[in-house]
């Protein structure tokens, strides 16, 4: 079992800052790999011990520990490092949801965004309602993809406000068809950002059942909602055509072509008309 002092000696091999400029230059990859391997040689305890060196505020004083953890995340992306990667990811995931300061957990989540896999998804999913780290958790899940949608779907019913918006958007980024029903409901949300996130997500999914909902959003009064929902409508039509659902796509294009009669929206009318013609409608 490695002691924290021994671990600190390893981490302290990271070069000092440029004291005058406050900038940092790492060692060569060869020297860095020696540091990373020394941490990995201590197994899970080594990784957890470096996490314990992080301060609850990124005030620049714990840069060596941050550098080692991030360097490990990149190092373990190399082919042949699968076994060490599994240990590293499990060790990082074990530090989430407990007593660690939220800023530390946030940093750990960001390293999982670099190197985590499906095995980290459940630990990240538990943070989706956390007011301090839900954004990092959702971003990491979207980056990891595998296992992400399940966690987001599971968390969504219990989320409100910012965490809910973040989850809706993450489901859209993942184009998760299994969330279509929840997204359709959110498309009528009282919150503008939630509505727009849901419309965008339904467009990315290419949800044929959402044509009326998306067009309703696109017919909002002039302003940001109308601009963004119209964009979602055009995206939905493209996805529908790609899926062979031309009739539904044509309905979107024809609606925009027929309703954008104001000169200021002629560009939308033209975009819809051109797309319709290209698709043979």
């Amino acid at each position: 079992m490695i002691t924290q002092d021994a671990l600190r000696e390893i981490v302290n091999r990271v070069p000092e800052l440029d004291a005058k400029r406050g900038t940092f230059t790492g060692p060569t990859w060869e020297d860095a790999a020696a540091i990373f391997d020394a941490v990995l040689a201590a197994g899970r305890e080594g990784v957890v011990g470096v996490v314990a060196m992080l301060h609850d505020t990124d005030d620049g004083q714990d840069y060596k520990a941050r550098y080692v953890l991030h360097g490990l995340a990149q190092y373990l992306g190399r082919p042949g490092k699968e076994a060490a990667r599994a240990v590293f990811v499990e060790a990082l995931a074990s530090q989430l949801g407990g007593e660690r300061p939220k800023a530390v957990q946030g940093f750990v989540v960001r390293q999982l965004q670099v190197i985590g896999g499906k095995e980290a998804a459940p630990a990240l999913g538990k943070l989706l309602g956390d007011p301090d780290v839900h954004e990092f958790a959702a971003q990491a899940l979207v980056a990891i993809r595998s296992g992400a949608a399940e966690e987001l779907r599971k968390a969504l019913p219990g989320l409100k406000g910012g965490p809910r918006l973040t989850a809706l958007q993450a489901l859209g980024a993942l184009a998760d068809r299994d969330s279509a029903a929840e997204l359709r409901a959110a498309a009528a949300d009282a919150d503008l950002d939630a509505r727009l996130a849901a419309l965008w997500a339904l467009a990315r999914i290419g949800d044929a059942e959402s044509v009326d909902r998306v067009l309703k959003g696109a017919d909002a009064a002039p302003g940001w909602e109308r601009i963004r929902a119209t964009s979602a409508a055009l995206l939905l039509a493209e996805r529908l055509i790609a899926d062979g659902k031309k009739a539904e796509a044509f309905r979107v294009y024809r609606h925009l072509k027929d309703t954008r009669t104001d000169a200021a929206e002629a560009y939308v009318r033209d975009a819809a008309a051109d797309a319709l013609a290209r698709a043979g409608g």
Partner: protein
Amino acid sequence: MATRASKFGRRKFLKGAAASAGLFTIVPPHVLGGPRHVPPSEMLGGALIGCGGRGPGTYKEMTKDLQVELRAQCDVKFRDKADNKMFYTDFRRVLERKDIDLVAIGTPPHWHALISIAAAEAGKDVLCEKPMTRFIAEGRAVVETFRRYKRIFQIGTFGRFGVSKQRNNIDTHKIMRSGLVKDNPGVYVKSGGLKVKEWSGRIDLAPQTPPASLDWDLYVGPSPWKPYVTRRHGGTHRGYWDYEGGGLADMAQHTLDPFQWIYGKDDTSPVEIEAFAPPAHPEVTGMWAWIEMKYADGFTLVLESGEWGTPYERKKARPVTLAGLDEETRAKVQALPDPEPLVTFAEAVKTRKQPGGNAEAAHRCATLLHLANIAIRTGRKIKYDPVKEEIVGDEFANRLVNVPMRAPWHL
């Protein structure tokens, strides 16, 4: 934010703009009429989003050879002066205006793609400061949006306009585009001038309270949330991965924009990228020695910082010229027509033809910066598919191609 001294400084710009706005409020030009005044039907409404640093210079470039009236200025640091008439903090309110036709974007790069896309969705044409994007997928989204809405996008570097008029560069362009040279031995090396040390970020600063005039949440926007630190804002943002990509992302565009045109790479990207650099810091950009990028046709592009490590010694620079071709190939190339002159932003706005620094060209140029930085950040040689725009066989490196955004911001 400025990369070079601007004759059109911000203070002078704002003062002039405010004075102009006042004048037009009293006597608009279309009321004045007469031969020396632009009729309202020809006057375009302009907006500047991101008013510090290069912003005023970018706006000036946008108005060249056009009749444009400045109608809105937007910056997240305008909280103390925003009136939602001329001065704004939120770009969405600017884009909602029907009387804005052209938008100059001078924000830090983490906002470039999103504001460009939203501007096109709102029917505006855009001139955007470089670099075009913060990561590769943003560029593809910009290209698709501007195609969908048939809007005009021009990147704010213009090096290609000059070099594309020079005979030797036209010949090289024709050789490269002809497809007649197999296993192209050409090598282009850019050494130095990339401000790598200058735009390395600082990591020794504790969080602070943002100034009251700054909307920090809107500044952070799509990037991961971080507490305010002075160096993350106001030009030194270049040293942070969250907003830009160091001197490489800031300066290399000046070289790579003309390179892309001369060597005919506006519709493709390298297939192998390798960097010699120390492992990167998670938050800040830092030093690197060189990046080697190989194209599918055999051509090699090298960026060398000259600021760290050992020099690049694998290959010597080797231009692609008519003299380097065999007689038969040379004759075939010379028989090809010269490329059409590049269309300026003003011409593009008037004719709706695509300008020289259009979205696809700008995206492919920015892709070079991003691939180089991905190789630096991962410490691995990467293979890239320029058609799918994905890193091949490295799912972890691929996560830097399309980076999840903070809600409500998305591509």
